Every structure is written in structure tokens, then in C-alpha cells.
């Protein structure tokens, strides 16, 4: 019961947050000197009349406050409006969301299933050769900018011919059998997910190592060891349980990054994901598209945090015990 009240309270708190986020982002975009019609204006064959029609269609002739209100009214009704090119924002998003989800889920699955064990091992075998090797590789992974690494990978693909150069599917994808389709997608996914994997793995692995080290140093672990428990029990039953709590909070943030985390990599790999769409939309001040994706990002962030907090309540009895102690 307490849990439900807590969730309801959190959900209620999101409303003003959403309003503030939308206000700030709307006005920042609209007050930036970006003109959504710039390209049309510089086209010698576009007449003033066509321009006027576009201005009217995009509501650019109205004061900015009115523009915001009409956007907000439509948004509450669930209508995301149209892009500046006249396509429905909702269909545009629907086209891209599955692609981005596919990429980020693959990456998250890979990093977590590799990063956590590596973190545990390197903490347990602190200062060993293996730990040092991991430290070096992690530093490299953290130091390489993602776009640069992505370009390196693209060159690798061109030189070896083992992987396709960007995209998600080959041009004859629709004529393939189901098995070949899967192979095709996997081939396209290897490089972008490898780039994202390498980069987020280092951080995660270091985080896990640090958490684990902290716990391994604490008195109760010493006590458990002194009591004569087996190393396996010490590490997995006592240490891990406590070390993993901060990781759950981290997972909440990862959830928020699900849809927007990989824009640069997507751009370099020409991956048809949401990140690339939003990047292009921001460049053109395509307000409806940008707003829809920003709102989606905010909602994802809030939900992610909420889920993390609920998970924490389940895993950590201390939090459960204290009344409303969660912030």
C-alpha cells in the first residue's frame, strides 16, 4: 500500500516537471536564431507566396506564447503535430523507435552481462595483472571519443569488407529469407554496438569495481571471513548484494538513455535511429519533432528513476524500513 502511495506521489510530481521542461526547451528553440525556412528562402525558385504559405502552416506568424499554447494543447490531447516537412511526428517517431531500442538494448545487455562480472573479478583480484590490464583497456575505452572510434570502425569495414558500411539493412533486405534477414541485421549491428559497448563497458566496469572494493573492505566482510564462510558465499551473498545497489540507480539512468543515448554513433553509422532524427530536427528547428522527442526523453528519465527506486526498495531492506525516506 505504501508503495502505491509512493508511486502516485512521484507521478504527480512529474506534471510540473514536464511543464517546466517543455517551457524551457520550447522557448530556447524558438528564441534561437534558427529559421526553419532558411533553405527555402535561399532557393531562387521558391516564390514569396510559397514562403508565406509555409510560414502560416508552421504557425511562425503568431507570437511565441500562442505557439507554445497551441503546441501544449495538442500535446495533452496526444497529438504531436506535424514535422516541418509535413509528415506526422508520431509516425516518424514510430519508424525510428524500434531501431534505436534494438541497438541500445543489445548494447545494454552486452555491457551489463560483461561489465558486472569483470568489475567483480577485478575488485576481487585487486592489483593483479588481470586487474591492471582491465584498468588500461578501460582507460582507453573512456578516452576514445565515440564518433572517432565509430569512424575508425567504418574504415575497418571498408578495408576488410567484412561488414557493411553503416545502415541497418541491405538494399535487397525485403527479398531475403527470414534467416538471411536476421544475419543481415546482425551484420549491420556488430560495428555500432561494438563502439557503444566498448565505451560504456569501461565506465560500468570501473563503477562496479569501486563499489565492490568499498564493500570488500568493510567490517562485516572481514567478520564473515573470520567466521569461516566460504569465499564464494562472502563474495556473492554478502558483498555483491550491497555493491549492486548503486548499479540499480545507474540502470535507471540507462533507461532514460535508451532512446537518445547514441546520437553521435548513429549519425556516423547512418543508423536509422531516433538520435539521428532528433539531431537533424534540432539543426532545422523542427519544433514539433524536437519537442516530442524531448518530452519523451523526460518521461523516460522520470520512469527510469522511478523504476530504479522501486527496485531499490525491493532489494534494500533499509530503504523499505524508513518511512518515506526516499528522495
Amino acid at each position: 500500500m505504501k508503495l502505491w502511495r509512493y508511486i502516485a506521489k512521484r507521478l504527480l510530481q512529474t506534471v510540473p516537471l514536464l511543464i517546466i521542461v517543455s517551457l524551457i526547451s520550447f522557448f530556447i528553440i524558438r528564441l534561437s536564431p534558427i529559421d526553419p525556412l532558411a533553405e527555402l528562402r535561399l532557393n531562387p525558385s521558391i516564390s514569396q507566396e510559397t514562403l508565406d504559405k509555409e510560414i502560416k502552416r508552421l504557425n511562425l506568424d503568431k507570437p511565441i506564447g500562442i505557439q507554445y499554447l497551441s503546441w501544449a494543447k495538442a500535446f495533452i490531447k496526444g497529438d504531436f503535430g506535424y514535422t516541418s516537412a509535413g509528415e506526422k511526428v508520431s509516425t516518424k517517431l514510430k519508424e525510428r523507435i524500434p531501431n534505436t531500442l534494438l541497438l541500445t538494448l543489445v548494447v545494454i545487455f552486452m555491457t551489463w552481462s560483461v561489465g558486472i562480472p569483470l568489475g567483480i573479478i577485478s575488485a576481487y583480484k585487486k592489483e593483479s595483472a588481470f586487474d591492471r590490464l582491465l584498468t588500461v583497456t578501460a582507460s582507453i575505452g573512456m578516452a576514445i571519443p565515440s564518433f572517432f572510434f565509430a569512424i575508425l570502425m567504418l574504415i575497418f569495414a571498408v578495408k576488410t569488407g567484412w561488414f557493411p558500411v553503416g545502415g541497418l539493412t541491405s538494399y535487397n533486405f525485403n527479398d531475403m529469407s527470414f534467416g538471411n534477414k536476421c544475419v543481415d541485421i546482425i551484420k549491420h549491428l556488430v560495428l555500432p554496438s561494438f563502439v557503444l559497448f566498448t565505451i560504456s563497458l569501461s565506465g560500468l566496469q570501473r563503477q562496479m569495481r569501486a563499489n565492490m572494493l568499498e564493500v570488500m573492505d568493510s567490517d562485516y566482510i572481514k567478520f564473515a571471513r573470520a567466521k569461516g564462510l566460504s569465499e564464494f558465499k562472502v563474495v556473492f551473498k554478502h558483498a555483491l548484494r550491497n555493491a549492486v545497489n548503486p548499479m540499480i540507480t545507474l540502470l535507471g539512468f540507462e533507461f532514460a538513455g535508451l532512446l537518445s543515448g547514441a546520437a553521435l554513433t548513429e549519425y556516423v553509422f547512418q543508423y536509422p535511429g531516433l538520435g539521428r532524427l532528433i539531431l537533424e530536427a534540432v539543426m532545422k528547428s523542427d519544433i514539433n519533432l524536437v519537442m516530442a522527442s524531448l518530452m519523451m526523453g523526460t518521461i523516460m528519465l522520470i520512469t527510469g528513476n522511478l523504476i530504479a527506486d522501486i527496485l531499490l526498495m525491493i532489494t534494500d531492506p533499509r530503504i523499505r524500513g524508513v518511512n518515506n525516506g526516499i528522495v
Partner: protein
Amino acid sequence: MKRVLFWIAVILIFGLCLKGCVKKDIPEKYSENILSGNIENILYPDKNKNVEINGVEYLQSQAPVGKFGGQIVVSAIGEGPKTFNPCNTKDATSASMAGLLYDGLLTTEPVTGEVIPLLAKSFEIRGNEYVIYLRKGIKWTDGTPITAEDVIYTYKDIVYAGLGNTATRDAMMIKGKLPELLKLDDYTIKFITPEPFAPFLRQLTYPIVPKHYFKPYSDKGDSVFNAFLNPDTPPKQIVSSGAFKLKEYVPAQRVVFERNSDYYKVNLDNKKLPYLDKLIYLIVGDTNNEILKFEAGEIDVLSLRGSNVARYKIKEANSNYKIYNLGADNGTLFLVINLGNRKNKEGKWNVSPIKQNWFRNRDFRTAVDWAVDRDGMIKNIAQGVAEPLFTAEGLSSIYLNKEIKGHPKDKNVSKASLEKAGFKLDNGILYDNKGNRVEFDLYTNAGSIDRESIGVMIKQDLEELGMKVNFKPIEFNSLVNKLSNTQDWDMAIMGLTGSPLEPHDGKNVWMSNGPLHLFNQRPQNYQKDDRFDWEIELDNIFEEGALKLSYKDRKPIYDKYQTIIYNEKPIIYLYSPIRITAIRKKIQNIFPSKLSGLLYNIDEIYVEKEEDK
């Protein structure tokens, strides 16, 4: 000691590896033939003929007979098409893709640039009457015949009604009137223009659309019509007439076209074209990605620029592609000077009066022009793959004024004309006749490496004259906003696209009330007549030029407009890149043309199959 030796060895090995990676400069001797691959000596096939087979009036291609089947993959840079509605395209990608789906009555001869029949069988011009004869027996992709009804509908209900992109309507408008349109019978129509009007014939290249498919949407007005045929439309529904049908559109990845098996063009064996089964556009975000895709063999055609040309040239001999030089690009790259002398809505000067005195002075502009080092730009920025430009018409335009020879950079001429205008050089600093230091801003759009480099070079050139130039690359959108709305700029480096065939298309730039009259932009509905004498002359030229019909009559008129701009220099032209394109050797029936490029005859192009070699 051992340790030290070990580290020295490591460093040595590492260094050697690095050295192997460093690319050596391209030897000088290659640079001469960078621009080879010229297309002067190409033998073009005869012009298309009309043939009648079983009562159907086909268009017959005279190109060598090829092999059916296969596909070619090309690239489209950017975000992909925004619509397949040929009446509502506002960007180049959408226009070229919609253009594949829908043919116009007439088309442009790819080599000479004259207007020739396409969907129409033939046409006659009698004074201001244009009679168009349609082909009998040809069909839309759903089997409905193409008749005069469709043509009348396209022009009356879409073009004249102002649906979609109104550029064609504006171009057809003669002194506020649109041409009359009559249906003589099911396969004959007649246009009557209020008076003879040269650009009119070219407007008949406008794509004809099927009435039965478009009418339900065009009846509902602009907003419904604009959304019609957007990229979510299921391809099977689309009724079209072109050589290719839409097969699938995968957002941000590709557009696939397949052969229209009932196209009205046949080859010399009277077999229906096109040869290709599929034409695939891969949507790529930028040119770097395009190059990688070409190298990986994913695309078949690649346009090369600057530094890449030499590299590809060297590799050409042992490769599976051939490089063509298609001549200078028809877009223009220029330095524009703000001659405006107006205040904004708040009553503040767009350009301060001190600067107005400089910019509105022709001698000042002449000094700038003579100081600009075009040859240096071509050498350093375009890597030799460009030609200097001095005219408002692009170098491939059929109306290019060849009398204008241009001039090299000459600081002395600049100094002389500055002196004439009363400017004084003191200690290397230039002052005007009232003692104000000459200092102004130079803008261009950030992100374009070429333009930013040009800006740096121009800044240096002008600072040699003692001017102080604040070079500011800004975001493209903000620059356009400055140029077309706020007008608080001094000089800018910009580029515009242009038509190599019809100088009248430049009227938005050159006529004093045009929405793109960059150098002296007047607000909308501006009443005051504050035109320069030469601006009045330009207005007259563009009005007069459109009313003359033959090329012979029009050429001198448009020659004059280029001379005026060359003399007055509100816009100082810089250079035109040369278009160099690589295409795989397996693609046959390629007859490159300076006007139309490589793939204009996509319905005649075929692929040599690998096993035949």
C-alpha cells in the same frame, strides 16, 4: 640498462609503424591530368523518335540496345525524400525522386538544352498558341489511359489553383495573367499565352499527374494535398507514369524503385524500356559516408570533389570505375555586399551610414573585386578542381556571356580605385574620406569548409588593402535569417543554385522586388522607389528577356545583365567547382553531358553482367 634498451626498442618500433601510416603527398606529375576525363568527344545517340506499334504511339530511344535486368545503386545525401508528390516538392532529393515517377509533357534535351517532347508526342508553336499532341494508347501504371483530361486537370486544378509549390505558376504568370488552356480533343490541348513569353515552353516540363488518383485529395485543399503522397504512402497505391515505380521506402536508409513494365519508351528492337530492374537510392547523411560506401562497393556512382579527385585519378587505372569530367558546376559561389540603406522596424540602421558610403560606392566594390585572389582559392581550396567565375550566370549556362573575360588579382588596381573614391592609406590602415577606419564583418555559414577557407583568404586579401575584416562563420540558418530578414550584415560568402537553361529563373535574385535580392533586399510591400539606375535596368532586362522568344533574341539581353553585374559588382563571383564523377565501368549507355550529368537517361542505362566479362 636493459630496461632503457627495451623502451628505446618499443619507441623505435612504434615510430616506424607510424611512419608507415603517414600518407605521402601526391607527386606533382599527377596533378596535370586531374582534370582529364573530358567529355568533349562523346558521340551522343540520335534524338528519340516516335514509333507506332499496335496502335500505341511509343517513344523510341536511339541508344545502343542493351541487356535487360540488373540494378544500380546511387546515393542521396541528406534525409531522404520528404514527399513523392511531384507538385509539392521543395527540395532537390524529393524533386528528383518524384520526377522519376511522373513525366512532363516536354523535357529538356540533355545535351543541347532545347525543349523536346516526352509524354507528349509532339508540339507546335503558332505565335502565342502552343498546341500539344499526346501519345495515343499510353497508360498510367494502373492501366488507365493518359489523356488530355489529366493534362488539363494538372494545370488547371493544381498549378493554376496554387496547390503545393507555386514556382511553376509564378513562372507562367505573364503580367498577372495565366495562359488559357483548351482541350481540342482527347489527345490534343492548346495553351494560349496573353503574349509571347519565352520561359513558358519550359514550364511544360511540369509533371503531369493522374486525375483519377489526385483529384480526391486536391479537392480538399492545400493542407490535405500537401500531405498527399508523403513517404508513408504504401508504394503499391501510387499511380504514376515514369520509367520507374516506387517499390519501397525505408526511412533514413533507402528508396527502391522498380521497373515500370508498361513504360511508353522502347529501344531500337521495340522492346519496352527501362533496362534496369531496380534503381536504388541509399540515403547517406554526408559526403564522407558516401565516399566510404563507394569504396566498399555499396554504391555505383560517386561525385568527387577537391582533394579526392587526385586520389581517385591515381587509382582509376586498376579499378572498376571510370571518371568523367562534367565541366563546371552551375551553382555560383560569391561574395555579396550589402548595399541596403534602410532602417529596421525599431528605427535602427541595418548598415550604419558610414558603411553605407563605402558599400554603395562602386569604386569600393571594384577595389574589393580586384583584391580577391581567385586563382589562389582554386589552387588552395578547390585543389585545382575549379574555374574562376566572373559572371552571374554559371559557367555551364547556355546564356553565359563569354565576352566577360575577368581579370587576375591586382592590388594596384584596387588601390587606384580606392584612392579615386577618396580613401586614404595611412600606416597600412585604410581610412575613408571622413577619417573613419574601414572595418566591417564578413559572414559565411559555419561548417562548410570551403566557404570558411574562402573567408580566411578574402580577409587576408582585403587586409592587404588596409581594411579590417572581422570574419565570422555563423550557423547556416542564422546567416539566412540575417540575409533575408534582419539584414544587419556587411558582406557574406554564399552560394546559389542556378538553372543552366533559363536565366529568367534568377528573377527572384535580380529583380529589385525579388524575395532573394540579397544585396539590396527590400522588405515585402516596399513602396518607395530607391533603385540604383542599374537596378532599374536589371528590372527592365528581366521583364524584356522573358517576352522575347528565340534564343538569338534573348542572348544579347541576358549578356547585358551579366555585364551590368560585372561592372557594378554588388555580388563578386569567385569560382565554380568542376564536377567530377566516378561511375562503375559495368554501367553502360552512359553519355555524360555538361547540362544533365551522367544518369539523365536512366531508362536507357543498363548493367553489363559480371559473367559476360
